[in-house]
């Protein structure tokens, strides 16, 4: 119990450290937001206010979230990698505390991104959300998986010569099991079609698998 408590303290300390660093140096966060805004605005502008199919709209939303997330999450371990402090950090807390701390910060960043971009997306594409709770649940479940896979992928790319493109290349195939059901559920939330809740279970199950796998595999890095 005491061990669990001290591990939670480590996780919280890492969350606090990364949160303060992100606040102090807002460039990464701002880049993620601006990337999402620019993409949504350019797509809306290029379609010229045309009425788009709900399936297409749902796909646009998730593509924007994915690529904006890659802009923000790829540098999750960059500070420690550049300063050479990752091993020191592992001495302070253990590897699991670092992973879950980083994962939590990634999740917060993605939530902030979605809170920022979703209303803009709905306004610019004139989206009528029929099932708001389904949409919110889908986004929440989708972001959990994206944060879990994104954090481990960021750890994998810290030693790579190329990072930006590589991160997206690595992340996309492993998060596809989240995106395809999430796009379908988002499409349903834009229409009056019947809800297929089993798809939400699929995303939740895959989130759990990704978190467990990240936890197991991170120890080998």
């Amino acid at each position, binding site marked *: 119990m005491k061990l669990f408590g001290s591990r939670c303290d480590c996780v919280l300390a890492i969350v606090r450290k990364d949160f303060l660093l992100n606040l102090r140096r807002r460039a990464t966060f701002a880049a993620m937001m601006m990337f999402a805004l620019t993409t949504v605005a350019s797509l809306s502008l290029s379609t010229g206010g045309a009425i788009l199919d709900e399936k297409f709209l749902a796909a646009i939303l998730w593509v924007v979230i994915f690529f904006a997330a890659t802009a923000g999450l790829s540098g999750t371990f960059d500070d420690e990698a550049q300063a050479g402090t990752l091993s020191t950090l592992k001495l302070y807390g253990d590897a699991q505390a670092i992973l879950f701390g980083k994962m939590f910060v990634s999740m917060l960043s993605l939530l902030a991104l979605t809170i920022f971009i979703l209303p803009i997306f709905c306004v610019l594409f004139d989206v009528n959300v029929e099932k708001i709770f389904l949409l919110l649940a889908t986004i929440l479940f989708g972001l959990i998986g994206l944060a879990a896979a994104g954090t481990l992928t960021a750890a994998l790319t810290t030693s790579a010569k190329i990072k930006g493109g*590589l991160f997206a290349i690595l992340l996309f*195939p*492993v998060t596809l099991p989240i995106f395809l059901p999430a796009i379908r559920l988002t499409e349903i939330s834009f229409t009056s079609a019947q809800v297929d809740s089993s798809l939400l279970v699929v995303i939740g199950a895959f989130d759990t698998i990704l978190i467990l796998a990240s936890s197991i595999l991170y120890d080998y890095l």
Partner: protein
Amino acid sequence: MNKIIFLLTTGIVAAIIFFVPPIKGLGELAKIIFFHVPTAWVSVVAFFSSAFFASKFLRTNNFSFDELSARAAKLGFVFVLLSTISGAIFSKLTWGAYWNWDPRQTTIFVLILIYGAYLTLRAAITDEKIRAKVSAVYSLLSVLTVPFLVFVIPRMYFSLHPSPISSSGVEMDSEVVIVLVAAVVDATLIFVRLMRR
């Protein structure tokens, strides 16, 4: 082993040209399945082999397992490309379009993406130890998509892909089945031979 592979391959090619009747409802050109199915099979075998050797490397830190994992991935990438191209030709012959995101096409495309990502990751890291660890972890992470590709995707999308095995049994001529099984065995032997190079 080389002699067995040579004889088997020659025998299969001869059987496809001279003995196998046209595939039911698909005609002579659809004989490309004797190339497509074995290459698709080997690309999946290579995927699991790569993950298996990756897990062996993480447990033992023996770099020969890393080498085997990378070799399986490289071979898998070649086989998955061959399978995709032959599958697209088969698709054009039977459905009139090279690509329509059929569940099987989606699965094979995800395999291409995973193999491509794995090989790009290896190329992007110069330190041998880090490269081995990182690529082994990615190899195992990507295996997690398999249950989704096998069980969920077919439920989400309608498939036009022919299903030779149904509830009433195998729906192919016995000559076709025999040659197809032989071709799968032959392709697997070629993969094993190339792995032992």
